[in-house]
């Protein structure tokens, strides 16, 4: 009975969408990189860097949107490093990506500590506020779920539509899909394989950083260590779950958000009998199960993980 009550409450679905928002940014970013043929395991670190850069810009006096721009540029910077290492130099995408994660995470913590050497409680900023859209937010159920989210959630949903449009309706999207399937096809038609792949990694990484920025600028109002907490890795799994499709990526992120929101609420209901760690594990276990079921049929970009070198065929 209680389970049904949770599932029907508007506040549960609002939480699910809120939890899903950084994952939507992250999974879109990973999707953009991987569709071009390059895995970006730097995502976890880029989340941290985005969270740090966005928060710090605002803390230093910039506006919220300027802060977001700073976060995106920081992500693009780390993406560019990954792009140079993996595309023209053709180094291992795994090693480079994990390196970026460690590097970006440490640099973020280091910058934070350097700026604020002796602060016990993290300084707060004024985060994005829920967009209370007059008439729409009064619609029963849908109103509170959809129309009381912050601007960043709307930005995430807009990006899903934008990415879908680019991949399905524009020449650029066709070229980006082709370069992840057979770079030789792109090269033979006179397009630049390096240009497309590096561009995709930079754009994808900027998108990932927005996911990190959501954490400090919308979900919480401060930066603290370990706040990314594996969200980047979840995105890597969700891309496979989504079979590299933007629409399914949104669905996957929402599903995870729902699992997570559900476990928190279930904990208060039956927490007396079951240890709380079981609930914390639940969304991850369910994600793995969903992945096992879906991923067997997933169609990988054929050139994923395969470096391409000019003049070598």
């Amino acid at each position, binding site marked *: 009975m209680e389970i049904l009550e949770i599932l029907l409450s508007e506040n549960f679905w609002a939480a699910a969408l809120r939890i899903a928002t950084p994952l939507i940014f992250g999974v879109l970013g990973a999707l953009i990189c991987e569709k071009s043929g390059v895995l970006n395991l730097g995502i976890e670190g880029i989340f941290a860097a985005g969270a740090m850069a966005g928060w710090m810009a605002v803390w230093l006096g910039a506006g919220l949107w300027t802060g977001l721009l700073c976060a995106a540029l920081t992500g693009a910077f780390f993406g560019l490093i990954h792009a140079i290492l993996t595309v023209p130099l053709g180094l291992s995408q795994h090693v480079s990506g994990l390196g970026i994660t460690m590097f970006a995470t440490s640099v973020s913590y280091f910058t934070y500590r350097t700026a604020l050497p002796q602060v016990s409680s993290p300084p707060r900023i004024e985060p994005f506020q829920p967009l209370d859209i007059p008439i729409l937010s009064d619609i029963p159920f849908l109103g509170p779920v959809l129309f009381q989210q912050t601007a960043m959630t709307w930005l995430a949903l807009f990006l899903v539509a934008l990415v879908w449009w680019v991949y399905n*309706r*524009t*020449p*650029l999207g*066709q*070229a980006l*899909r*082709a370069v*992840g*399937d*057979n770079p*030789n*096809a*792109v*090269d*033979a*038609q*006179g*397009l630049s394989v390096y240009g497309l792949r590096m561009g995709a990694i930079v754009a994808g990484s900027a998108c990932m950083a927005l996911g990190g920025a959501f954490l400090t600028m919308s979900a919480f109002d401060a930066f603290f260590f370990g706040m990314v907490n594996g969200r980047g890795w979840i995105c890597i799994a969700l891309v496979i779950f989504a079979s590299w499709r933007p629409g399914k990526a949104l669905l996957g992120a929402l599903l995870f958000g729902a699992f997570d929101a559900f476990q928190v609420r279930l904990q208060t209901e039956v927490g007396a009998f079951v240890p709380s760690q079981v609930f914390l594990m639940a969304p991850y276990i369910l994600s793995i199960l969903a992945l096992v079921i879906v991923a067997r049929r997933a*169609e990988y*970009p*054929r050139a994923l993980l395969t470096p391409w070198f000019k*003049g070598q*065929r």
Partner: protein
Amino acid sequence: MINDTVLSLNKLSKRFGTVVANESVTINLKRGEILSLLGENGAGKTTLMNMLFGHYMPDSGSIQVANTQGQLKPLTLGHPQAALDAGIGMVHQHFTLAENLSAIDNILLGSENLFAWRRSMGTAREKIKDIMHRTGLNAPLDTIVGKLSVGERQRVEILKALYRDARILVLDEPTAVLTPQEADTLFANIDIMAKDGLSVIFISHKLREVLAFSHRIAVLRHGKKVGEIATKDADEKIISQLMVGADTPATPREPLTIGAPVLQLTHLCAAGTSARSSLEGINLTVSASEIVGIAGISGNGQSTLAKVISGLTKPTSGELAIDNQPIHKFTPTSLLKSGVGRIPEDRHHDGIIGAMSVAENLAIERLDSSDIQQFGFLRDQELKLNAQNLSQKYDIRGPGIEAQTRLLSGGNIQKLILARVFEASPKLILANQPTRGLDMGAASEVGKRLLQARKRGAGVLLISEDLDELLALSDRIIIMHDGELHAAPSNNRAQIGLLMAGEVS
């Protein structure tokens, strides 16, 4: 009109390290002409065309291409885009198609403004339809390329070049993957296009199609142009002499009396990677002193058949007997022990272990025999002795018996595999595409060895896509299509070709 030159390659040279790929090659091409570029593997045909298309930068030499007014202009070297702009289209041996895009998207790739917000394909579609109508090259435009047949993919490749207004079309071994009928259709289309003013260069090493469909033949050997001849003045003998530099007499086949069956398949079914390549109740007998050739387009069950006989796939029903002994345990070892010698299709991947030495690879199928090992330890001296003997006997050349096997050339890797197989004196030899990718010299060596084995009394199952090779070596030919076997009614190429395409009368 047929006299004006549209392309001129002047003294092109290219080296890769110390290897000379092309040396001072000069070739001219006229409007509406079909030139065939002939040569053995490694003669430098593909390198030459890759320089023309800007994939490689020549070390010296220059290229001139006629513009739309017919004036020769120098081509910027090393840039595919420059070659495309100059009206050169290339169809690579390995197709350069994105399989996750539709045919029309592949054709339009790179021709649209990359940063347009939406696509308008109406005029483009009209233009492609018009080209298809004019040339007879038809392909379903809205189907994902991954779902098209090989012939359709090739037509998409050619359409791609024609859509970009190519006036010079280069085809790299265009018929390697086609049935004889598909190849004939392709050449008929090329002929129409040439009459329309398109100049065509096609690379091939099949003498028959070169003689039948080109206007002029240029022959390359060891990177140099060794001859150029109008097709009407050429015959097979002249060209093959130019290609290899000397006569290679065909190995004579002695008539032999066929012995007892060494391989019997009865109502055998086995699952392949697709429905088309699954075996559906086939019956097949190969006897001692007999070479049975399996013809067919790849992907029709040949690999599945080979896998069953090698013990890599367990049949779902039916029986397999080697030397009259039914096989129950389908593992590579059990079939090897019962007397099957295997020459695998992908010699680099399945035939050798590239990181291990030549000596180790030569002994790898009999590591348990006592002359190679003792108490579970390899006997190093014996291993080397064995390798030295076999290298000499089978003329395996390379950096030495201690060197990694992957450093050997394709022909020498195949010789290594032949040595390993023939020294075990198998009752049945499964030769799957044994000459694919080998030059004439190495290929004739393989044929000679197979005929020797036949004389010794072995049965040979020869799977090949090269009809000429099958006709030269086999006692009888069986055609495989859609997982089923059909005996060839005669050695008539056209009849076999029809059966390969699945036209059973």
